[in-house]
């Protein structure tokens, strides 16, 4: 069983603020992903990483950035939050050679 955590679970913040959404895991999986989920829409991949110091942008353009300095952590940062960033953000991990992704509970972000 993979343990993957996201903090905060809910965040309401004003426009222009810098925010970092945390994603951490205890299973040592190399692959990690960030998805954006809006009501009634597909989950969109916005960032992924295949290991330390490896990050790539996903299929959906995003103004956010990510880093992967340690295997356990894959934080997502918005330098200046805008109302258009209001969404749910899901973090997932996956082991090499395996077909299953494990998801955190998500962070619901509201930018006012």
């Amino acid at each position, binding site marked *: 069983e993979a343990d*993957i955590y996201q903090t905060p679970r809910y965040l309401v913040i004003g426009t222009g603020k810098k925010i970092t959404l945390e994603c951490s895991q205890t299973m040592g999986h190399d*692959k990690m992903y960030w*998805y954006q989920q809006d009501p*009634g*829409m*597909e*989950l969109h*991949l916005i960032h*992924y990483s*295949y290991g330390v110091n490896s990050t790539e942008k*996903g*299929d959906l353009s995003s103004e956010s950035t990510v880093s992967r300095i340690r295997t356990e952590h894959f934080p997502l940062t918005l330098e200046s939050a805008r109302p258009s960033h209001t969404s749910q953000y*899901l973090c*997932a991990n*996956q082991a090499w050679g*395996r*077909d*299953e*992704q*494990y*998801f*955190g*509970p*998500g962070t619901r972000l509201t930018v006012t």
Partner: protein
Amino acid sequence: AQSVTQLDSQVPVFEEAPVELRCNYSSSVSVYLFWYVQYPNQGLQLLLKYLSGSTLVESINGFEAEFNKSQTSFHLRKPSVHISDTAEYFCAVSANFNKFYFGSGTKLNVKP
């Protein structure tokens, strides 16, 4: 690239009734198919998957899905649902286990 369509955003059903959640996909290459389930306040978790072999796959809690290549479908079925099946169900495809493409989800609401 691949895409997934889940036409039904919500499916209400009475307890012990049968249910079918529809999933159609589009891809120019062969894909693997997955159903994930998200219970309230939890992350997505794998329900069942089709990788190869028999086109009918089953989960441990009574769900089944059939891969139909000619119709590019992977519909999820259960002959008799329980209250505890209330959740959101996501269909996903992947060609190589590196990127997954998820549908928009179907909320199954089981009523007593």
